[in-house]
């Protein structure tokens, strides 16, 4: 606590992200999940074993419904059934067997999405034994997958659920230029990560700019400079281009032996094919511009710049490129490349027509992502930038859903969307509001008033305060 900066440095591999495309019950345009995993082999790899948990239909009435589609419905209602949002409006028809939730005085929003988390890979209690976020053995480790580190019994998970989080992107750290694949997860109690994997979601690839790779590898063979960083990304993608050509050739006619598989190049090839989204830890404006040029050189898109504390300086450029920014409300100054952080960062990106996202990168912040969005919204408003409540809500719902490629499935309250829904005790932009109920795919995964719906991890059993004790 008193040495937060050193902690931050230790966790420095937290900042890349991944992309995903989700096929819920309804299959999105990109059909085979195997496509998202690899075009080098035609067998499923480490598939999701997610299954929706049964829950009776639920109708929440007399609440303020914030849809994240531009509407805030006072005294509205919403019906959830079989994992779907069935109806949203001033009134809804509910089946006789629906559980009725009195939402008087309460607010309802989509489940919050954190596109930058290290839950499960930097698990509590924070021992070296559980430090599984940075494969800091080589500056390019595109071959590692965060899901293979992820510990579902991380006691930070129930805390984040109680904060209204329903989906996360769990990322490798930022020690490496290319840190590995992310895991896109439904945030639910589970025994295995496979049960949490968002069905059909595409992987993301974590990349990192700047100080962290320099610091980690500067005395270990490099890179030791930002130009060394750039050379490292380019060398990796040049190899990936050659690998892709080999496989494309073989895939045409399957003549002879297939090329030898290379997991590192396989991940990069899927980036080149647009099947994996690049999620890029990058602080400085000039460096983000370099990374955009890198993406142009190799013909891929950067889905989101993460941390991006200087993104306000090039908000016009980022909007034009269609690259989102995943930022904090007010972090700054913990290292040199974070020196120019300002509270209006998200708002200025919104004003420029960009796609801001408020992310946490932090097991505390993820519990209060609504508060972080509130701070960033009001900082903008006080500076004369007319951020709407709906826009700010989208910073933690629809926009991160887009960054993960899941925006057709989650992130708003619309009929047909997955029933990821939070009931708040009051206005979620108030410091005094708390999540009262959290539904994940229609399942009541958390209820602040009912210890029967306050999941605990194995780690907590017999060690930490019991459910209902306001952890």
């Amino acid at each position, binding site marked *: *606590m*008193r*040495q*937060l*900066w050193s902690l*931050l*440095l230790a966790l420095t591999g937290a900042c890349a992200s991944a992309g995903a495309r989700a096929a819920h019950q309804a299959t999105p345009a990109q059909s085979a999940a195997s496509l998202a995993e690899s075009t080098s082999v035609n067998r499923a790899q480490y598939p999701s074993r997610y299954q929706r948990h049964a829950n009776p239909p639920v109708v929440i009435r007399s609440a303020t419904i914030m849809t994240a589609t531009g509407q805030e419905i006072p005294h509205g209602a919403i019906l959830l059934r079989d994992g779907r949002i069935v109806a949203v409006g001033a009134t809804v028809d509910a089946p006789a067997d629906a559980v009725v939730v009195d939402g008087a005085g309460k607010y309802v929003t989509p489940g919050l999405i954190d596109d930058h988390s290290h839950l499960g890979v930097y698990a*509590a*209690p*924070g*021992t070296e034994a559980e430090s599984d976020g940075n494969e800091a053995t080589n500056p390019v480790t595109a071959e590692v997958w965060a899901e293979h580190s992820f510990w579902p019994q991380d006691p*930070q998970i129930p*805390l984040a659920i109680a904060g209204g989080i329903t989906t996360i992107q769990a990322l490798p750290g930022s020690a490496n230029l290319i840190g590995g694949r992310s895991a896109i997860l439904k945030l639910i109690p589970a025994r295995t990560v496979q049960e949490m994997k968002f069905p059909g979601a595409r992987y993301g690839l974590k990349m990192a700019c700047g*100080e962290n790779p320099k610091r980690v590898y500067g005395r270990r063979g490099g890179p030791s400079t930002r130009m060394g960083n750039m050379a490292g990304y380019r060398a990796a993608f040049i190899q990936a281009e050659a690998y892709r050509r080999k496989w494309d050739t073989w895939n045409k006619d399957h003549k002879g032996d297939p090329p030898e598989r290379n997991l590192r190049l396989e991940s990069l090839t899927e980036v080149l094919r647009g099947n994996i989204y690049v999620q890029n830890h990058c602080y400085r404006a000039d460096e983000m511009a370099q990374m955009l040029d890198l993406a142009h050189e190799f013909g891929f898109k950067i889905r989101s710049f993460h941390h991006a504390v200087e993104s*306000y*300086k*090039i*908000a*016009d450029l980022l909007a034009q490129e269609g690259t989102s920014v995943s930022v904090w409300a*007010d*972090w*700054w*100054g*913990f*290292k*040199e490349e974070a*020196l*120019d*952080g*300002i*509270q*209006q960062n998200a708002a*200025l990106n919104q004003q*420029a027509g960009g796609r801001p996202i408020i992310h946490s990168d932090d*097991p*505390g912040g993820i*519990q*209060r992502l609504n*508060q972080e969005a*509130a*701070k960033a*919204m*009001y900082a903008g408003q*006080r*500076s004369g*930038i007319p951020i709407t409540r709906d826009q700010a809500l989208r910073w933690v719902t629809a926009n991160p859903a887009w960054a993960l490629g899941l925006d057709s499935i989650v992130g708003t309250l619309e009929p047909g969307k997955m029933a990821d829904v939070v009931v708040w005790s009051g206005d979620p*932009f*108030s*410091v*005094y*509001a*708390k999540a009262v109920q959290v539904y994940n795919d229609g399942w009541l995964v958390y209820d602040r008033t009912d210890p029967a719906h306050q999941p605990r991890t194995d*780690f*907590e059993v017999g*060690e*930490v*305060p019991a459910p209902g*004790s*306001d*952890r």
Partner: protein
Amino acid sequence: MIAFLLAQTIAITGGTVYPVSGPKLANASLLIRDGRIIAVGTNVSIPSDATRIDAAGKWITPGLIDGAGQLGLVEVSAVPGTREATVQGDTIAAAFNVMEGINPASTLIPVTRIEGITTALAVPTGNLVSGQAVLIDLDGATIEQMLVKSPVGIVADLSESAKDDAGGSRAAVADRLRRMFRDALEYERRKVDFSRAQMQPLSASAPDLEALLPVLHGRVALIAYANRRSDIETALRLAKEFKVKLILAGAAEGWEIAAGIAAAGVPVLVEPMNNIPGYDALGVRYGNAAVLAKAGVTVALLETDTHKSRNLRQQAGNAVSYGMTWDQALRAVTLSPAEIFGVADRYGSLEPGKVANVVVWSGDPFEFTTGVEHVLIRGKEIPLTSRQTELFERYKKLPPNY
């Protein structure tokens, strides 16, 4: 500009005043002269030469006090050249007073004060005994001008992070501290023998032992960081043995023994939003501050991350969400820290005679909707600008006008 910065007579009129030392006063005024509050109430006569600040519809509170962090002692956390809070190679650094490490020109100071934090404890870090913490106002061209009190306390670490300095065991931490106190008393009794080198070696240097004497005589507090319940109990035990005036800091599992802490009359510095379990405090939870306050413990709330000191009000808001009353939380960021740090005669409330550290808010200071409208430190109105507001102005229209 110069006139703007000079102390003068200022009247803040027509707002809701939260004196903290008493009930709130609607439609009240505050009169300030030469850096001090000279009148508070609903019937204050305003001299004609007073500069008026119209606070109709606004909330007026004392400036907030953050009892943690390294304001002035760090600029960029990861850049060692800008860090001054830790003295290397001295596990018992009791004589290390951080005062002359403070940089009055630090950019963190304006960033923090324009959000209503006017006073902060600058806390040494690292080692078994980290050094001497000092209280500063967040304004002033020199260290002397900023200083409120030095030292406020000597900081010792009884948490997990101190173990390495004591050889790897909590028991050794307690033993080292106990020997240190005994040696300080021995040193005091036998200074002449010590100077003639006619004594066994002591467990710390003469300046460090000397620095501990005011603690052992109850004139300076011992600020003990401890989180695990048993470590808190060790701190209480040590304080009792040596009759030390103890301030507990961190105290993540303090709620488990709130009654005992209250009975010992020991105040606690708590970070309300801290709830991530680690082996140093598996019992950490949001409700800690509320449970302690309810048990009668004097609680001050902290934001320990220096660059985020401005989030002290978010910490306070969350403390309210998890059980503190709003009045308790306001007191825990104003008058209670002033009491704990021994400056309540000058700080922490809006009363005649007190130093005029005053904030005018657009509403509830803990709410995100609320903005700071005026900040006064020692009776001077502070311009609401910082390096960050300047960066915003520079880039609010693109391309920037370089």
